[in-house]
């Protein structure tokens, strides 16, 4: 050990960046006539540990650092980045980004003022600073527990991924803000074999938390859950095909909402008029049961941020209130267009990419129904317990989701497990068909990563038990039973 990770641009680092240096770079960035510029310094260290066949098979670490310079002129963006913090390299990036504006009046950066942030991260024991043996032991516990959980378990893999992202964001509007974003993700997957069949199951979690995460949710709990899912799916039968009632389990089902509704409410698509929600603020876009928020402030959640990647402090934003479209998620650019306040949703994957409006933790809030009563109300339908992932066509809201664990509901009871289930539908259409909402809101245990235009960011999702009156289920079994 002995080598500590420290951002070179930190006050105590080898090449500290202060307001004076930042101002010099911003002046270069605006020298060609840009309206606005910002600097995004990043130093990200991550570690990964892969436990497989009952040994820690490989361990890894990655250091990624650089500066991204953005210059805006009207709706146009110039972007450049470098991976070195020498003045020469940084100045070159600033001049390259400046080229987007070839003419025009000169804007000067305003006086820079450092901001102090309130922390929403809950990392008491930072994973990256803990000894490797401690993390290896957590993985080993998961491995042992999964193998003990059922004799049909033939393979177990467990992984731990840790990250610490140090940021310094400086804008020509005078913002100067630092943040340190921890991220932890733990996962177990198991393969079981029985009766000539093979199935996989998985469980994972984490967030902007430290190793104390495991006090509440043990490696054993994830192991048992992964095995439970795999064993349950061993008996899976062909799923029905066609339109029917669908009940979504609380928590991770929020990913459906994220895809089907969330993306369409990102303001860039609405600025470009390419979203199905364009021009619909104030209109009814969902059943009146539905209130949807994007909340970056949930303590310790995977999508939580103290500050967005444009230096803006986020707050909880209401997107849909009692079925009525209330507002979009904004970054600086779209907020300027809509003459709205930035909502703190300007996020980017790294210094290599420009920010876009992105979700943080997107939640469908609880309703008043008892979850059991919701299931009892279904004559024949599908209970969606775990989602594998999904995709949406933003322009019209059409989406597809695949279930990794789903069941048939028959006469108000959850019965046979189903294999290969896809749910297909249209975001606004499905939101209008929400007929019951449970009182059991859950947020996902940090596993989701959202992709947009090739950029991945960690997000949180959440919802209560949801009943949708009708949705297309893509199975293979036609007709009745």
């Amino acid at each position, binding site marked *: 050990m002995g080598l500590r990770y420290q951002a070179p641009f930190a006050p105590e680092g080898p090449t500290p960046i202060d307001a004076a240096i930042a101002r010099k770079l911003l002046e270069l960035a605006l020298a060609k006539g840009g309206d606005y510029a910002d600097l995004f310094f990043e130093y990200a260290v991550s570690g990964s540990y892969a436990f497989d066949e009952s040994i820690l098979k490989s361990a890894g670490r990655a250091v990624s650092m650089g500066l991204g310079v953005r210059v805006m002129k009207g709706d146009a963006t110039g972007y450049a980045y470098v991976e070195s913090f020498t003045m020469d390299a940084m100045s070159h990036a600033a001049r390259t980004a400046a080229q987007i504006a070839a003419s025009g009046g000169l804007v000067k950066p305003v006086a820079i003022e450092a901001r102090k942030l309130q922390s929403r991260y809950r990392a008491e024991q930072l994973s990256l600073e803990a000894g490797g043996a401690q993390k290896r032991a957590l993985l080993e516990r998961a491995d042992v527990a999964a193998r003990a959980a059922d004799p049909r378990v033939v393979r177990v893999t467990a992984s731990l991924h840790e990250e610490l992202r140090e940021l310094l964001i400086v804008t020509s509007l005078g913002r100067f803000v630092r943040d340190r974003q921890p991220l932890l993700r733990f996962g177990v997957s198991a393969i079981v074999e029985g009766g000539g069949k*093979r199935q996989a199951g998985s469980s994972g979690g984490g967030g902007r938390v430290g190793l104390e995460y495991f006090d509440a949710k043990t490696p054993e709990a994830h192991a048992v859950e992964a095995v439970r899912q795999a064993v349950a799916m061993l008996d899976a039968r062909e799923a029905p095909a066609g339109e029917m009632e669908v009940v979504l389990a609380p928590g991770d089902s929020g990913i459906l909402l994220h895809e089907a509704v969330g993306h369409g409410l990102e303001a860039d698509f609405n600025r470009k008029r390419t979203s199905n929600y364009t021009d619909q603020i104030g209109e009814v876009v969902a059943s009146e049961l539905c209130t949807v928020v994007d909340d970056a402030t949930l303590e310790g959640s995977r999508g939580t941020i103290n500050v967005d990647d444009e230096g803006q402090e986020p707050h909880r934003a209401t997107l849909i209130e009692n079925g009525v479209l209330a507002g979009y998620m904004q970054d600086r650019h779209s907020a300027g267009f809509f003459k709205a306040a930035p909502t703190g949703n300007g996020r980017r994957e790294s210094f290599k990419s420009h920010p876009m409006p992105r979700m943080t933790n997107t939640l469908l809030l609880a309703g008043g129904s008892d979850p059991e009563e919701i299931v009892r109300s279904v004559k024949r339908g599908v209970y969606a317990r775990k989602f594998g992932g999904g995709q949406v066509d933003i322009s019209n809201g059409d989406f597809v989701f695949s279930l990794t664990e789903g069941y048939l509901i028959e006469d108000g009871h959850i019965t046979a497990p189903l294999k290969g289930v896809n749910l297909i539908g249209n975001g606004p259409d499905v939101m209008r068909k929400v007929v019951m909402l449970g009182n059991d809101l859950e947020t996902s245990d940090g596993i989701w990563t959202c992709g947009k235009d090739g950029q991945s960011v960690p997000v949180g999702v959440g919802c209560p038990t949801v009943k949708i009156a009708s949705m297309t289920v893509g199975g293979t079994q036609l007709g009745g039973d």
Partner: protein
Amino acid sequence: MASERIEELKALGDQVVARAVRAGADVAEAAVREGSHLSTKVRMQEAELVEEAGSRSVGLRVMLGQQVAVTYTSDMSEAGLERLALDAVELARLSQPDAFAGPPDPSLLAAEDALPDLDTFDPEVSRVRAGEALGLAIEAERAALDLDPRITNSEGSTFTRAAGLSALVTSGGFRGGSEGSYASLVVNPVAEDEGGKKRSGYYWDARRHFDEMRPAVEIGEEAARRTLRKLGARKLPTAQMPVVFAPEAARTIVGLFAGCVNGGAVWRRSSYLLGRVGTEVASPLVTLVDDPLIPRAPGSRAYDGEGLAAHRNVVVERGRLALYLTDTYSGRKLEVPSTASASRGASGGVGPSTTNFFLEPGDVSAEALLADTPRGLYVTEMMGFGFNGVTGDFSRGASGFLIEGGELTQPVSEVTISLNLDTMLKRIDAVASDLDLRTATASPTFRVTEMTVAGT
């Protein structure tokens, strides 16, 4: 010029390997990469984004006996490289001995001077300046907007060029370098459908050599045509029917299969193809090849991620599974030699992967194949992630067209198509001749005799 730069990267690789060995590694392998790119996007004929950057990084894999670790850094300072090596060795001490770990047999390593030139680099690509790049993007979008008044909006048009150099140096004795270039143009028009529903479509081209790119106007017009033909798309009643996969959708199916012949998935027992070598896994019309040696192709490489000489692998021959694609480690696990399919990720990790992986074209044209289909679904796009590699269960959202009397009629959207992949490949009864290697995983049009199409 480029060869001098490659020599520089190799020298850096030598230095990193030496540092790791000095720190205590028995085996050290360094992959050094350098890249530059320019990306320009226009939307509604206005410049929206000009992005330009260069980057450099090193990925390192070390072994102490049979303990393995990987590290990566973009911090190329003296301190950064020293940390890269020390961290790797420290992490290797933490990992546990794996009886199958180890470097490839040195006798299998490719000799640097025997590596073929695959013509993957075109200096013209790097000469495209921001102004010219914007011009191409504008021209392509203009062509899309002008083709038909029903094209009312655009998600944009993007021209990107990239060039990269890489070097691999291993303590086992391999030293190699390569260079590649890439230019792409994608256009994404939006049309307004009845009831105000928006339909977004796209078309693109990407080539390693600039002069092989399709003209910008053609790309824009094709994007507009593909968007317009979706207008009026509806669901279909749920039914069983033949399904014809257009190349864009067909290559997704080929890609799913690639994941299941990956040696890593097989030894982990997470592939439905476990234990199937030598047996029928597809119709006799199906031959699947992984060929890294095709000049100018997107997935080409002269040596694999461990320094073995790359070669062509026939994975499925007329329906019969011939082999799994393996690197040294998965080969040892499966008791077969490496197929020289090792790929070294940016983060330093090594695992098997495909290079140019494709379904061999058949004799009939795609038009003739369609004309020969009285009724069915023609799938142009798929959505979602509904595939379970362990069981082969497949179910995805699809859109395309109804085929009636051998012709495309009603546009279709919001349906799902489902069938186990093993059954699907066995039900292929026609493969067309329209293979285009603009993507590393590629397929011509093919037809499956019957699948479940779920709609209303």
